[in-house]
């Protein structure tokens, strides 16, 4: 079942590469949050307890509810144009993504030969990490960079759940809080950038260099 959800996770990645609407980006983030929480719950489906459910529920609240809402709010407040403004042809971007994904799946296959990893979640997670980085590189809007960062984080999260060792609850909660605050701070910064500069894409960030 984790495999199934991971495959769906991969599909969201492919779709985010194709689409060019900010709204879709946010709803994909939401979908990924739901998928991740489901992946976390699934191994314990037979012996649920409050203690086990703390992390999935928090991650659901943070990743599927609060952060997408927050990003939506920024988009509406700042009246960001609803197109993501790619700096690369979507077609080439998709080709690049498919190629990277293939590399990930092949390496997951190779790696699973000598390490007990779950190949599908592993490859999906690393695809997400790569897609997140690509989005940060190939998109101009700062708010889209935040989405890219969140996708990267989701990938890491998925990887974390697929690796056997579990972190203590306090650490996981701390990590979740950190990610949330980072996104929150980024949102505030974008707000400030909006009030300081006229645009909100990377072109305004060119003052500091040697």
């Amino acid at each position: 079942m984790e495999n199934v959800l991971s495959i769906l996770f991969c599909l969201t990645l492919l779709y985010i590469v194709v689409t060019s609407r900010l709204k879709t980006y946010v709803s994909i983030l939401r979908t990924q949050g739901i998928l991740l929480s489901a992946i976390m719950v699934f191994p314990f489906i037979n012996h649920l307890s409050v203690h086990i459910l703390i992390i999935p529920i928090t991650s659901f609240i943070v990743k599927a509810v609060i952060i997408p809402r927050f990003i939506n709010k920024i988009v509406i407040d700042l009246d960001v144009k609803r197109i993501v403004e790619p700096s690369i042809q979507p077609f080439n971007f998709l080709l690049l993504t498919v190629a990277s994904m293939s590399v990930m799946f092949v390496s997951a296959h190779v790696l699973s030969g000598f390490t007990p990893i779950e190949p599908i979640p592993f490859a999906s997670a690393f695809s997400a990490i790569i897609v997140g980085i690509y989005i940060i590189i190939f998109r101009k809007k700062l708010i889209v960079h935040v989405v890219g960062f969140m996708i990267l984080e989701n990938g890491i999260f998925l990887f974390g759940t697929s690796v056997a060792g579990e972190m203590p609850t306090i650490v996981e909660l701390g990590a979740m809080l950190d990610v949330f605050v980072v996104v929150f701070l980024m949102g505030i910064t974008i707000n400030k950038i909006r009030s300081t500069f006229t645009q909100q894409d990377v072109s305004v960030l060119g003052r500091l260099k040697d």
Partner: protein
Amino acid sequence: MTELIILLGLPLIGIGANYLLRSRKAQFGISLLIAGLHLGVSFLIFSGVVHPADNEFIRFDALSRLFLLILSHVYFWVVLVSYSYLNRPTLVNEESGKRLYFMMLNLFLFANTMALISNHLGLFWVASETTTLSVAPLIYYYADEESLEAMWKYLFLVSVGIAFAFIGLLFLTLSASGTAIAGQQLLISTYTRYSVLLNPIWLKASFIFVLVGLSTKIGIAPMHPGDIDATSNAPSPIAALMSGSLRGTALIGVLRIYQIMVPTATAEFARTIMVIGGMFSLFVAFVFMFKVVNYKRMIAYSSVEHLGLITLGIGTGGIAFVGAMLHTVFNSLTKMVLFFNAGNIHRSYRSREVSSVWNVLNAMPWTGWLFLAGFFAIIAMPPFGIFFSELMIFQGLMSRPWLLAGVMFLLFFIFVGMSKTVFRMLYAAPPSDAVQAEIPAEKFDIMHFASIVLLAALVALGVGMPAQLYATVVQISKDFGIVL
């Protein structure tokens, strides 16, 4: 237990108190009290008077003790000068920054302490991400376009970097699969004990990811740009805090992974990577030292240079490792002097551009001479401590003459580039057509006092090394499997 309450609990209380209190004087008083107590406790722990009990999450080994003392010390001086810094005539619209200032400093102290003494790598990760969060609003102190850009870049680059470090930690978990410690917590003590069992491929991958990720915070090239922008645009005490202690906190993460790798066959790999990273940082500092037009950026690049030297020393091993550990101490002291005085210059000349600063020695004698002394300290002139630690690093590099020659070459030209800029600022006569802003006559203030004390400490520590410091450094070397 008392120690933990003072080290971790007091900063937490400080956050709350600073949130509630509106008077800046009260905020300063509380923060200084906390800083003083923190410094006292970490000094007691460092000198071995107090032995806090280790538990699953917290450990005070020699490395933590040394870095904790560096943190407390830098933090204490920064808090001490902060009050007068905040009360200075306002440059721009920094009022909003002042409100958060002490609260964020307390958060910084809490997160950094947590990162330094944590025995659980996950906890370390959370804490070091929190340090980024605490520092980001402080970078935005001046609330102008540059600081906004610097804050965004720092926040974003470091967050992505830290995310990479987390991947590295997960790889570390993977390296344990199939061994006796599979499925156990990511405790440094456990992993160090059973490191020979770990899978070398995952261990190497882990090291690379952690090093690359934390490099954004440490400032090792090529991941340094966010750090440079942040340090050069933050207010001077914060810049001193970042250069003096935050970089060290990130470095400790890399050191922990390296410590796990030491007994295994992969140690050589880690050392090679660190030597490459160190050399590349020196090279980047060398290139940019000739290009800089902004003196705070120059000091920031000097941080890249020195962190590069430290990484190089750690990678070289042997006596160079000892040198590198001492270098972290001396570097933190020197960077404070430089940033404090650069802050003074910035305030009087209202510019960070080298070209609009001249004749500092006459206009601001205290600042000018102290800046000059700090400059001599950072380029490793003999009476200052950095000379001795660099000498130890070079001694360790003796076995690789080509590398040593390269390092010497780069350091020499960094010296040339830096001195060109510094002497121009200090001595150059104002150009005839310059519209000289009136520089107010300078009074001796707390920043000068701090600089003098720090320079004196630097000389004292260099000339007569305290036995306790040396013993701690030797203990760290022993923990890292170095036989002296």
